[in-house]
């Protein structure tokens, strides 16, 4: 049911507790909206390249020509793309679904060179600041942004983090998932250094790369969106192992990494597997602790996609064994077609983990989130 609401002239004086933090939600620019924020030297280049260009999709989600991999009810009436209208997002995610704070993760793609990747990141950050996090669009104070960082250009990414750190509405650093090599390589250290110095977690979101970063598996390309998307978790599993075995958390003891949309049930057997090899060959890596300890202290996974077996008890036990209350952050992935509703997610979590996963962990990971926000009359409370 649609909730009709007028934007109040003033924010309510009444405060309400944050009970749901959504750590994966995707704003997109309206047509042409990003261009003015691009560094001048790239504007015409990017425009020229996109002239006459069509959809670049590989691995299409179901009914793609009609859904574009989105919730089909999330397209605004002005003809722009899903996620481009702050008011519609506010209505569907905050008022109707009951998420209290939204960590926006824009996925505006990249370029062909390091400089181009960095230019898109710069533009995306300035665009968020002007079009989403400003007092007009964020009048309700429920949106938080991501400092998008181009890992292709670690030094520039570190400067970009410094530039935006301290912005009261920027809550994390956001990087793509597909770049080679894996995150343990020391070339990325400037990014981890800048993030930890500023108390910002680094979130890693999957997208699509090019060629063998599409990604491609060690045995070649998957055939369908089904096998590709399910096996995407293998990429994250490798990033976890790289971060742990290559000593990133010993180099940066305050680093917090959030894996977004990579699923998470695989983390349980992965921790066993890492601990098993560590028990046999540990000294080779010079780690100070056993691998699963690093995971529980440094790595977070978002809940969407929440995958479950037929027998829900198996899922519950798996959550208990992995101590999921030390690992998970709720996420919806709105407006993507794999959207998870917060009430639906909460009801599948063991009661004693529910509050930690739905919001308490997020309040700890994202350092600048408030515990209370101005109340919104008529808002659904999911928890």
């Amino acid at each position, binding site marked *: 049911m649609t909730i009709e609401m007028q934007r109040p002239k003033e924010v309510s004086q009444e405060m309400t507790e944050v009970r749901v933090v959504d750590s994966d939600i995707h704003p997109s620019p309206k047509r042409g909206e990003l261009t003015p924020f691009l560094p001048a030297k790239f504007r015409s280049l990017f425009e020229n390249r996109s002239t006459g260009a069509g959809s670049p999709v590989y691995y299409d989600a179901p009914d793609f020509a009609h859904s574009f991999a989105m919730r089909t009810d999330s397209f605004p009436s002005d003809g722009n793309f899903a996620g481009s209208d702050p008011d519609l997002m506010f209505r569907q995610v905050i008022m109707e679904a009951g998420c209290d704070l939204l960590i926006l993760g824009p996925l505006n793609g990249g370029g062909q060179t390091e400089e181009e990747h960095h230019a898109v990141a710069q533009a995306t950050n300035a665009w968020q600041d002007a079009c989403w996090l400003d007092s007009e669009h964020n009048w309700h104070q429920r949106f938080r942004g991501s400092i998008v960082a181009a890992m292709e250009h670690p030094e520039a990414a570190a400067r970009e983090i410094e530039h935006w750190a301290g912005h009261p509405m920027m809550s994390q650093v956001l990087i793509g998932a597909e770049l080679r*090599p*894996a995150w343990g390589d020391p070339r990325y250290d400037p990014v981890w250094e800048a993030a930890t110095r500023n108390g910002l977690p680094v979130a890693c979101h999957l997208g699509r790369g090019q060629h063998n970063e599409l990604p491609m598996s*060690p045995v070649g390309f*998957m055939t369908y969106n089904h096998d590709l998307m399910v096996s995407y978790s*293998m990429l994250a*599993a490798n990033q976890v192992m790289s971060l742990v075995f290559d000593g990133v958390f010993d180099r940066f003891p305050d680093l917090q990494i959030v894996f977004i949309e990579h699923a998470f*049930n695989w983390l349980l057997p992965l921790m*066993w597997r890492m601990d098993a*090899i560590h028990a046999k060959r540990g000294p080779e890596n010079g780690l100070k602790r056993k691998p699963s300890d690093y995971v529980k202290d440094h790595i977070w996974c978002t809940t969407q996609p929440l995958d479950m077996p037929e027998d829900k008890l198996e899922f519950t036990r798996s959550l208990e064994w992995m101590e999921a209350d030390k690992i998970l952050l709720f996420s919806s992935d709105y407006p993507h077609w794999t959207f998870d509703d917060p009430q639906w997610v909460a009801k599948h979590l063991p009661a004693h983990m529910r509050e930690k996963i739905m919001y308490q962990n997020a309040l700890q990971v994202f350092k600048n989130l408030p515990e209370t926000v101005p109340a919104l009359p008529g808002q659904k409370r999911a928890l």
Partner: protein
Amino acid sequence: MDPEGRPVIDASVHVFFASDRDLRGYLNEPFKSRGYPDVDVAWFAPPDGVRYAPGTQTDVVIEQQAFGQPVQRVPGHPGSDPELVGRQLFEERGVDVAVLHPMSNAGILPDWHLGTAIFAGYNRMLVERWLDSGTYADRFRGTIRVNPNDIDGAVREINRYKDHPRVVQIGLPMQTQHPYGRPYFRPLWRAAVEAGLPVAVHIEMGVGITHPPTPSGITRTFSHLAAYQPMTFVWHLLNMIAEGVFEEFPELKIVWADGAADMLTPFIWRMDSFGRPHLEQTPWAPKIPSAYLADHVYFVHGALDGPGADAEFADDWLRMTGKEDSSMFGSSYPDWQMHSPDDLPRAWTPEQREKVLWRTAARLYGIDIPVPASA
């Protein structure tokens, strides 16, 4: 038998030629004079230099000469002497029957003619030395190695050996150019099914024409590689399910011989959850993905697998996703990772131990094991 009197089938014993010269004795020209990599290479080898379990080197001393090096007299390669291997497995380690897997790098050579010729040498060696002669021949079962880069040649090799009574399995490399669901591989599955033999997929030795071992390139440490690479089966399996391989070949049985069965549980949960809408794209695989596991998918249970020997919930975990019916103990003799039934989780039920130690392998490979009175 294990200490409690249960039979033990070791579903993963690695066999080798004693030396390169030994292998060349099984090759004809022009292949005998070709250049190809040794099974053991320095790239991402264990940094402590210990590739194989202590005591597995053969007593036989062989002469070999590396390029530009003086002639060396060295012990034969671990896993190359049927008498020593048989003595260690059957008389010291309590194994009743061992399934042998010849270890090579021929499946990832660029020249597929050369690869097929080398595999033929391996297969002749396996049958002559291990299955048809020697003290322990009746307790060895063999895996015929075939080349996925030469489908016609692979089918011919399967047909050459399929009627040998001690050949129980076809062996393929884990590392491929394409995932095993792609239609290019179908003649292989057809030949295996017609031969009535399961197909084991095992990591090939060394490096060759493979993609990097992770989706993000090479690893930086040996530990990372050793723990990660066995999970490669996930891509093959997801792709085989979505491509309808098990629908087209209902008799096909695949053994993921490097273990990592624990990953099956989360990945099949995910594939099922994501399956329903995607099935509209793959009508050739109309069932929910987990329905294709039973009687098709098997695993060797290796040293890195499971929640650990002391995990109290290990029995519950093994039950999930049918792992208790698909896992088979395999020691990986003589690899450095070699493990024994003593390392298996203590919380497994007696029935689970029976299945993993021998019942599932006996059924899959058609191995007659005298059932102890107590079982």
